[in-house]
């Protein structure tokens, strides 16, 4: 469904992603893992069109996304929850959700979408008239995901959804991601919490210095001695 071929991405004079090819099958969970600064977020930003300096090809259902601005990419059915959530903290929870359904296709069903978001995250319903900035970290992450789901995307790209959450909430978050996936949403997940990410991923890519170092099924990589040594053994000794 999403196909990336030989992608190079630049930040000014610096190249952040080198010749990356990957594909995301419909209905799957794909994880991009790797250390800080490996180019994971840059890759997502390139797909969603925020970063325009790129070479190579990005295809979504056969159509090229390479030259499209972010707003058109959203309309095609790709939703991106950026790193750090990026909520509008002076807008209410309700307004944040409503904006999520801005594109014409989803605007028609905004009422149902908001109901669905409240079903998924009951806590948001109780706080619908509060400003997003007043929410707790976990609630903010839920709102960010709920907002991104408002456009009824086919692919949801999540950048570090577990960042800054308590271990309890991290668990809830990953359950939620799997839950969304069961509702036919394809997931492209960027995580530093490698252990958790690999556990739920159908397919995973390990990024190192902007290049793909390894790829395989999530469970396979999880038990791969090299991955264990490089990422899990040292930092995530037992999670």
């Amino acid at each position: 469904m999403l196909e990336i071929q030989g992608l190079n991405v630049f930040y000014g004079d610096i190249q952040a992603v080198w010749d990356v090819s990957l594909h995301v099958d419909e209905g799957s969970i794909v994880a991009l893992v790797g250390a800080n600064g490996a180019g994971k977020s840059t890759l997502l930003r390139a797909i969603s069109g925020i970063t325009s300096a790129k070479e190579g090809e990005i295809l979504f259902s056969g159509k090229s996304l390479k030259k499209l601005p972010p707003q058109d990419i959203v309309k095609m059915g790709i939703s991106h929850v950026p790193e750090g959530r990026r909520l509008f903290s002076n807008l209410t929870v309700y307004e944040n959700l409503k904006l999520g359904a801005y594109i014409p296709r989803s605007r028609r069903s905004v009422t149902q979408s908001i109901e669905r978001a409240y079903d998924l995250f009951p806590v948001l319903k109780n706080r619908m008239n509060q400003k997003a900035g007043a929410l707790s970290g976990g609630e903010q992450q839920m709102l960010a995901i709920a907002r991104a789901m408002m456009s009824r995307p086919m692919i949801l790209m999540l950048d570090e959804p577990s960042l800054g959450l308590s271990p309890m909430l991290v668990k809830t978050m990953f359950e939620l991601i799997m839950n969304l996936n069961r509702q036919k949403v394809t997931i492209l997940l960027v995580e530093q919490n490698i252990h958790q990410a690999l556990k739920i991923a159908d397919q995973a890519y390990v990024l190192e210095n902007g290049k793909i170092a390894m790829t395989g099924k999530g469970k396979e990589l999880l038990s791969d001695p090299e991955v264990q040594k490089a990422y899990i053994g040292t930092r995530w000794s037992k999670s």
Partner: protein
Amino acid sequence: MLEIPNLDIFIQLLINGILFGTMYGIAAIGLSLIFGTMRIMFLAQGSMIILFAYVSYWFFELLGLDPYISLFLIVLIGLGFGAGIYHGLFKGAAAQEDKNISLLIAVGLMFLVENLMTVFWTADPRTISTGYTSLVFRPMGIGIPFNRLMGFIIALFATTGVLLFLKKTYIGIAVRAAAEDMEAVTLLGINPHRVNSVVFAIGTGLAGIAGVELATIYPFDPFFGFIFVLKAMIALAIGGIGNVFGALLGGIILGLLESLSSFFIGGGWSDAVSYGVFLLILMFRPEGLMVRSVKKA
């Protein structure tokens, strides 16, 4: 040196200050919205106001159109003109990290418009003089000039309209969101250029309202716009950027400040007082006085 005015004069000063200040307030709302979403200090706002004052002057002199009727037309022209300015001049620059480019384009536009107006209408001061120009209401002995009162009422309507627009419409909510984080806005499928051009349209539409008000109550010349935009910025500094009602209130406070200081310490010095207040606020409260939430990315 300091005269103690009697109560009537004092009340008169307050009323004049408030009524004149709403005009600054309207101009400041436009500046505030544009700065809020694009971080552009639109220095040409004052020249736009004067331009619309001339347009309303022309409508009146050439077509005999009453300024309060041509107001509707001028607001429409302003909306279109604003969107045009954005697409023609600021579209590329608004996305640039270097905000000096937009600042300098605004400076160039101000310069261009000012001097074009001088060529068209000469530098002589103009004003619209209708049958009701000197009409003054006197409730309880306090003189309220009709045109100033109208200006005040129109300003209140305009402010309410902008507030409702920002609160109730999809694109209005997007404008408020864009003031916080434009990138996140585009990630929701919203075209940033649409948001920006709407903001410019509103800003210039408001300039149209301020221009008509100005033309009915005050003699203006092409170079008055620069002073006007400075005043609007002072109002903004007082009221706080990104706060529509605050900008109006800032304008009113500035109007009061000017009206009182020109009475107590003399005409020309009141400008120095305003600029002094401006500098002090910039230095000690760069977000403006009214902003309560202390938040910085």
